[in-house]
């Protein structure tokens, strides 16, 4: 196998400063042997054309900056292997959020929903001098919940979020809501459930499971949402 190879891209481009409307740009780039991930290829492309704009930071799948729509599926550029991508590789912004420029989207609505679930521990007992105790089993309940990186791959792949981004909390926000409901140290269970007891905020989830399919961290928001629904039912009876 030769060390250098040329890869074809189709990239969504839009600069409101000069473009009337968005367009798809056909562009190719010669990659080095070390360019293993999509992000490496995009950085290589940007070295050629510095007007290509995208967010990126940690390049190891933990900061959540470089979420985008890759060949029709949401994912992180830094965790997407080039060898698995059919060409031309089609890159679009995350669907359902306003585009600011190229693949950079306005995430205001996404974070608004995250903030709406009160994403912080509530415990009104006087703080003890040392740590609050939590058994390893109770701590284990938080696994699969706290690891969320807020990349928005899930919420922007969810039809319910596309239709009602202002009313439906979305998978990321609901996963965070359950992260606190599941924490034995948290005391705001009933307020948290009240906050979600609404035809839209929680119940717009129809278990389509796109969120599970795209989560780059392998998390399962649908399962967490199911558990919140169970808690709702249990407190009703």
């Amino acid at each position, binding site marked *: 196998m030769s060390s250098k190879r040329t890869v074809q891209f189709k990239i969504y481009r839009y*600069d*409101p*400063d*000069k473009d009337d409307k968005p367009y798809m740009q056909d562009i190719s780039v010669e990659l080095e042997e*070390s360019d*293993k991930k999509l992000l490496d290829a995009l950085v290589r492309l*940007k*070295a050629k*054309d*510095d*007007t290509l*704009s*995208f*967010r*990126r*930071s*940690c*390049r*190891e*799948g*933990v*900061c*959540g*900056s470089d979420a985008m729509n890759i060949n029709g599926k949401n994912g992180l550029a830094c*965790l997407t292997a080039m060898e698995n991508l059919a060409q031309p590789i089609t890159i679009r912004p995350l669907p359902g959020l306003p585009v*600011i*420029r*190229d693949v*950079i989207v306005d*995430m205001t609505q996404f*974070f608004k929903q995250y*903030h709406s679930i*009160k*994403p*912080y*521990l509530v*415990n009104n007992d006087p*703080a003890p*001098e*040392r*740590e*609050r*105790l*939590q*058994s*390893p089993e*109770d*701590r284990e309940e*938080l696994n699969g919940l*706290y*690891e969320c*990186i*807020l990349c928005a791959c899930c919420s922007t792949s969810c039809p319910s979020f596309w239709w009602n981004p202002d009313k439906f909390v979305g998978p990321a926000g609901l996963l965070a809501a359950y992260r*606190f409901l599941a*924490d034995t*140290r*948290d005391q705001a269970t009933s307020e948290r459930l009240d906050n979600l007891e609404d035809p839209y905020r929680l119940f717009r989830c129809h278990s389509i499971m796109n969120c599970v399919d795209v989560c780059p961290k392998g998390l399962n928001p649908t399962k967490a949402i199911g558990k919140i629904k169970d808690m709702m039912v249990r407190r009703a009876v």
Partner: protein
Amino acid sequence: MKVAKHTFDAVIVGAGGAGLRAALQLSEAGLKTAVLTKVFPTRSHTVAAQGGVAASLGNSTEDNWHWHMYDTVKGSDWLGDQDAIEFMVKKANEVVVELEHYGMPFDRTDNGKIYQRPFGGHSQNYGQTPVSRSCAAADRTGHAMLHALYQRNVRANTQFFVEWMAMDLIRNADGDVLGVTAMEMETGEVSIFHAKATIFATGGAGRIYYSSTNAFINTGDGVGMAARAGIPLEDMEFWQFHPTGVAGAGVLITEGVRGEGGILRNASGERFMERYAPNLKDLASRDVVSRSMVTEINEGRGCGSEKDHVLLDITHLSPETINKRLPGIREISIQFAGVDPIKAPIPVVPTCHYQMGGIPTNYKGQVVVPKDGNSNVPVAGFYAAGECACASVHGANRLGTNSLLDLLVFGKAAGETVVNDFRSGQLTLKPLPENAADVSLARIARLETQTNGEDVHEVRLAMQRTMQKHAGVFRFADILKEGVTKILEVAERAKTTQIKDKSKVWNTARTEALELDNLIEVAKATMISAEARKESRGAHVRDDAIDCAETPNGRDDKNWLKHTLWYSEGNRLDYKPVNLQPLSPDVEPIALAKRTY
């Protein structure tokens, strides 16, 4: 260009661990505070910390802060200031327990306490045996911490300016700091943030090196801004090369892997650290382990077809332990090394990781500079914390898990100092000089109009390759000297960078050009300070420093037990004494000794 002006009690630049911890102090005290950050807070590089945060809680092995203090001073190769170190290790339990109260999902011991694991250079009884001091949330401690801090700030209603890049520090004729200029990335507009107090928490500049564990955003923005504004940079020759970056990719593999029992092996499968550090072995200090690895590779015992790396082996650990304690490492290893560590060892090489030096501060988080014969005079209105600051607690080499501790303790301390100074009326809103934004506007105008200039990507690459080649794990007198000439040439080229993108909206080419200005300051400071320091100490090891009774390990306490101060203007060097005196009169100083593990 029209320049908007925002007025606040305090402006914090950076929303990683240190910035968020400081912000919490200010928001909860009711100060009108702006937090500027070029990325959404949870994207800051604290998120990538893995192995843990140090505190002598003693949850699984006996421990106390005296041992932690000894380990930190020894780890620093006695370049750390002992007042700041005492302050940090004594505060450790408090700030870690606070985080637990904020909701941080620490792993737990069987009796429900915070789980702690061993880490490099941390010991019981003054260097005798490894101690479990690293408080961990699996191998995602930084992520868990940063999110918990952000969440607590949501609760405290902290006001964030997200995706705003700070550009330049504003000082008046007396040298007082009055705030910063900043650019909103979405619009390209420049604003002035005028404040009574300015706290820098902008992180490190690991991207000056070609091979780095650091995120793209780690471009030393605060350090560069401070240097351009006439503040000296302290101890910039000291850079930590983390022993275990994934070979080729640079991505970090936590020392916690060795804390959980991981072993480094050379081509013949030998556990070579037994030869270099008979006592702590694979858990010796990072500088020691990195040098041992490079020595193995240089002497032909490296692994792979190029013999250019060594192996980190955890195949003897149970899959349950790996999945429970090191799940992120398994993920990273599969993703970036193509290896499942349950089945095969991970290829690793020492990789640039952490900036020990930075903006000089005292243990209260005040920025201090030499003035009228006093080495440590606070700059009115200016504070710094975290990796961008040099308190100095890490000296010539930082211990693993002391960075997360540093940002908690000094983020909080800087916040508390500002609140106290504010309440005592010491902080006032001083009039802005006329044209306070001119420097920033000129930088932007130059990028608008530059022709026949240099490509940002190419200049950055030239800088990174120069740093990698001339100021690496082992340093050589002649190569350093040549490095100074080369880096000054690169710095000249950086003055005429040119970008094609002229858009006002989210112009990342412009952001990268502005970041390069900051990186270049750090690169110059590093090379010039390193060339000048004619000894070996901690992470700075030279071929011409001889190991003898007079200079143990090549460390020359007679001539070089002092902090470097580099001034950007004229590349001038100055020095100031190390504080060997602990904070409390009843605490014994840790006496100078030869450093062995």
